[in-house]
């Protein structure tokens, strides 16, 4: 990040938003590079949607500032609105209209006209593969198709930055993967900067070039998914053995590990390269005459990163996605 010399699409500077006494976003600062897919990863209620809502001028900023391609989101709203496309967490289509009519409405509001409009609509429909459904009423669409239509709509007016708020929430795994494909294709083909929020680990890992982990309205770590995972020290190997204490001692002496911990009758080893370490460990055990019952290898996920940073899991029990969604919606609707 430090050696980056290109342009930044989004710059957030100590951005904060309070609702009454509750601070939803607390002095958040980050920079999004032009052309990258940047992710905000965190549990429900962490402040992801609020952050995106501020950046996309839907709600006001309590303090701090942010710019999109140099335009101030607080002071130059119309300029910012022209630069961005947004796909909201909750659906925002007119179900009574056809897909085509929804796209046409959007194009008109953004001043895309005539042949330019026709071409743009054809292009976006092709990208999300909805050409043959375009003249059907949206209420006949499946959830995945609606999402695709919304993504298509989000970049009809050729925005410079596309915001995706929980783009695959409530979708089945197959549809989710398809949406990911579209997002990646869009990013590659048009060099569009994309900022998304998600509480799905795999989504952040698969799509994002950089991820900011957010919790309780603060960004607690920001890096590439690879480096975030590496920050845990590497892969985790678990070894079951009849003499865990003695084996742990011998592994430590081998000096190819980051840490070795005894956990009851098993050992937990953290090491840079798990698949190479396992034969070494088995070799050590055999030489010492210790029996190895089993070994498991686990590569750390962003979930493990989140747990090590916050001490809890991203997916909390209790509120379901839709409950949370409704609550957020009402909450925002009030002001």
């Amino acid at each position, binding site marked *: 990040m430090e050696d980056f010399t290109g342009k930044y699409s989004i710059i957030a500077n100590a951005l904060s938003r309070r609702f009454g006494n509750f601070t939803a976003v607390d002095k958040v600062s980050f920079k999004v590079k032009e052309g990258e897919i940047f992710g905000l990863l965190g549990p429900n209620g962490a402040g992801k949607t609020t952050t995106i809502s501020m950046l996309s001028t839907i*709600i006001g900023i309590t303090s701090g500032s942010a710019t999109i391609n140099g335009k101030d989101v607080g002071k130059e709203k119309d300029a910012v*609105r022209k630069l961005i496309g947004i796909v909201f967490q*909750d659906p925002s*289509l*007119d179900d*009574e209209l056809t897909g085509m*009519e929804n796209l046409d409405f959007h194009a008109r509001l953004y*001043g895309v006209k005539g042949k330019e409009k026709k071409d743009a609509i054809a292009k976006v429909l092709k990208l999300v593969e909805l050409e043959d459904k375009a003249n059907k009423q949206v209420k006949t669409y499946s959830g995945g198709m609606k999402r695709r239509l919304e993504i298509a709509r989000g970049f009809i007016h050729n925005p410079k930055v596309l915001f995706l708020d929980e783009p695959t929430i409530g979708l089945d795994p197959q549809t989710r993967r398809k949406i990911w494909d579209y997002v990646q294709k869009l990013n590659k083909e048009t060099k569009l900067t994309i900022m998304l929020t998600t509480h799905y680990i795999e989504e952040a890992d698969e799509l994002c070039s950089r991820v900011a982990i957010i919790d309780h309205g603060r960004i607690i770590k920001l890096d590439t998914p690879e480096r975030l995972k590496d920050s845990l020290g590497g892969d985790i190997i678990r070894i079951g053995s009849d003499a865990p204490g003695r084996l742990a001692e011998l592994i430590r002496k081998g000096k190819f590990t980051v840490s070795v911990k005894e956990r009851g009758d098993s050992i937990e080893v953290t090491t840079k390269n798990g698949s190479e370490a396992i034969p070494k460990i088995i070799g050590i055990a055999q030489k010492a005459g210790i029996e190895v019952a089993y070994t498991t290898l686990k590569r750390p996920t962003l979930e493990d990163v989140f747990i090590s940073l916050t001490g809890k899991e991203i997916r909390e029990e209790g509120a379901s996605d839709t409950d949370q969604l409704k609550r957020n919606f009402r909450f925002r*609707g009030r*002001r």
Partner: protein
Amino acid sequence: MANFLETIYTVWLRETIRFLKSKSRIVGSGGQPFIWLAIAGVGFSSAFVLSGGVSYLTFMAPGIIGMTLLFSSIFSGVNVIWDRQFGFLKEMLIAPVSRVGIVLGKIAGSATVSLITAVVILVVEVIFNILPFSDLSVIGLMEAVAFMLLIPCAFVSIGLIIASTVDNVEGFQVIINFLVMPLFFLSGALFPLTNAPEWMKFVSAIDPLRYGVDGMRGALIGVSAYPVYMDLLVVLASAVVLVLIADFAFNRIEGK
């Protein structure tokens, strides 16, 4: 400016497309006035005898047009609440366009729908000779159409004002039902207010529909309490004021 007009047109277009797609709305808004004419009109005409030689049904015909304009326009504010619940309102609020344009587009859309319904009813009333063809004139018809455009502008605005402050459909309907009945009965659509008690005359004086109905009566059957141009001015003024308030109320949604 071109952009501003495009916004109004875009929002208007959507409202119109939605109406044309909804067969139940078309049948409902077109059918209701005839039920009123058939039941209330025929029923009351045996009880009322009007001075001046106008039959009761004829007297009531412009009032039913007024009623149609009132009902279809004031309830259309509910669209804003549906838009909010279905998220579509956000799609509009986030667009780089002026909100005045959105409000005017909404008003224009609902007003168009009301106007079309009213014209259909006018034509049917003429066909059934409830409105005598001999009383009609080109100028009178043009005046009537002017009322049919302005009355909905006033009442769509009232609907929008309520919809901007109430965020659920049930609440909206309760308030609108509470408003609609007095607006309707005090408008003189069903009975003449000339012999009504003073308090009722006083309250009905602030009902914009009263001037709308009176004006249309003057324009279509040549009987009215005030000169038609005066009615037109009052309706125009109330429409302008209400549109401005609606714009203000709509702008407050989600802050600016």
